[in-house]
């Protein structure tokens, strides 16, 4: 099947008692891309990600994830993607082994699969030595790695990443970015949003810039930089939105 990873058609959405945030939004992200979604605060990035992952519901328009409409195949789609939220999304009182065992089961994996996959991830993300310690004792960087490990536990075809490296040291950031590139090389489509523009330039090959619920630029990163005669995302962002990227 050659369907797009994400296809948004004529999406309309507003929070109750607010004017429309998205008014006929259209967007297609192809499979295998490392797609970055950027914009100033309040542009609608988090809302769009919440709509795609099913955390928010909508009435008008459609969103297809890997060919399945989110309106009708919600649970099926949830099996296909992974989500790494900005907040730590695990149980701090549990160990990495226990967290992965629980979330793995909720992804529908069996016990053998869970053990095998957990050990692989602990190896890749350098968590083996601490896998049996409670996560609440970990540094911010180690917690980010656990957050990521849970999101990729079931080897999803599509991975949503919301600020996956915020608050981590340079070494851990490189480790995480390299792993994400490796995942992408193996076929996982990445949907990424962050305030770390340098990191975004390093990771993303296609981007969309959003402002006030509208997509104001959408292309391969190198094409956009060439078109607007900029040498980095920050300059491109300021030129297109007239705002500082915060």
């Amino acid at each position, binding site marked *: 099947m050659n369907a797009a990873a994400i296809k948004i058609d004529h999406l309309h959405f507003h929070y109750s008692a607010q004017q429309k945030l998205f008014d006929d939004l259209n967007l297609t992200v192809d499979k295998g891309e490392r797609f970055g979604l950027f914009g100033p605060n309040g542009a609608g990035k988090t809302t769009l990600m919440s709509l795609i992952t099913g955390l928010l519901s909508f009435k008008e328009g459609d969103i297809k994830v890997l060919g399945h409409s989110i309106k009708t195949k919600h649970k099926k789609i949830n099996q296909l993607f992974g*989500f790494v939220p900005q907040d730590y*999304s695990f*149980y701090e009182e549990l160990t990495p082994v226990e967290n992965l065992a629980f979330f793995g*089961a*909720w992804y*529908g994996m069996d016990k053998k699969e869970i053990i095998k996959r957990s050990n692989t991830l602990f190896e890749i993300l350098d968590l083996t030595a601490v896998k049996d310690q409670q996560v609440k004792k970990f540094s911010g960087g180690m917690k980010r790695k656990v957050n990521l490990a849970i999101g990729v536990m079931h080897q999803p075809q599509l991975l949503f990443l919301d600020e996956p490296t915020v608050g981590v040291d340079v070494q851990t950031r490189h480790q995480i970015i390299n792993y994400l590139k490796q995942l992408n090389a193996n076929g996982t489509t990445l949907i990424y949003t962050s305030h770390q523009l340098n990191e975004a330039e390093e990771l993303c090959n296609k981007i969309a810039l959003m402002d006030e619920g509208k997509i104001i630029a959408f292309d391969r990163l190198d094409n956009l930089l060439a078109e607007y005669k900029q040498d980095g995302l920050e300059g491109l962002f300021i030129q297109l939105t007239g705002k500082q990227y915060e």
Partner: protein
Amino acid sequence: MMKLWATIQKDVRLLLRDRVGLVLMFAMPILLVIIVTAIQNSTFDIMGGKRLSLLVCNKDEGNTSKQFIAALDTTGLFSITFNNNINEQQLADKIYGDNVAGAVIITKGFSKQIEDGAKQTAGKALHSFGLEGDAVATVAGNKNFLRFYYNPALQQSLKLSIRGAVTGSLQMIESKATLKALYYAINESDLPDSLQQQILKSNVGIEEIPLAHNMASTELTATQHNVPAWTIFAMFFVVMSLGSSIVREKLSGSFIRLKTLPTSYFIALLSKQVTYLGVTVMQAITIFAIGIFIFPSIGLPALHLPHDVVGLIIVTLVCGWCAVSYAMCIGVFAQTQEQASAFGAVSVVILSIIGGLMIPSFILPGSFRLLMSISPLHWCLQAYYVLFLEGGRLKDAGTNILSLLIITLILQAIALLELKRKKLI
């Protein structure tokens, strides 16, 4: 099944690592059941086997006052101490300081008053028979030769018990004296002891039988009353841990991830119910075991389990499920952990009061007795009392179990509808 099992494992681990929650769910109710049982046991002792301390000050030198004291002693209610040279201030010190329930002062002339009164009554009786007895001077009536002092803080029921025993002893002495005087007036000889005992002895005995469902005798102790009641309180107190746990999960980042996973949040709720139902069963086992094995070693009556053990298991499971459903309902509606803990704890205390756990339900005003029927703790208590106090079987607690199941299903429905409204299931 794998998902549910993994979730139960997760919940059990989280529970075992929550030391404050464990203390609230186990240590606190255990402490409570020991303290309350010990306090109530002292009341049971007073009303049961243990005697009330009574001080007697006898300023009379006659024989009748001695017979009166002997009559007081034979009531079995008092442990009598004597002090014949005590003044009112010393008496007050004794009552307030030495834990004396009351004091009886027999003033000088008590015996003569009784004897003269008896002779006068005997004379009147002979006169009414048409016979002539010895002339006796008229005795001044109602002169207080007996004073009863008591602590104003003494429970009304205890005060009435003491007064009843004193009055009964006095009447017995007066009857005996009158009988003797009458016999002497007719026969001019003393009433033989055997005849006196035969005349005064009551010919109608009273048999006291605590009525049990199986017609077997049931021992009513503070332990039999308190252990089931505080076990129920402990079960409903899981609201502090479970309610907070649901709110904590809703507010945590893990909840966002759970909502994006291909599994219904219903599994998480089911797991919490199974886990905490296990907790309530553990609470019951622990508190019952303390009642059976620890209570006797600390001077409290031992708990006797009901004959219908299967019934006990089923009632415990139904009570536990109802407690867990109540906690789940609070957790689903509460916005913060503070709301869940504060509302949960206060509401359980209120429900336990109107449910008859803390004060006997018959003391409550009529309007509150209607409220009682909406307190699940009331039905739990009634079901346990059928087994523990009335010697009944499971079928005897059928109405209580049915009421509990109805309340449980209503609580479940309310919680699930709210989750549905919030699009969480």
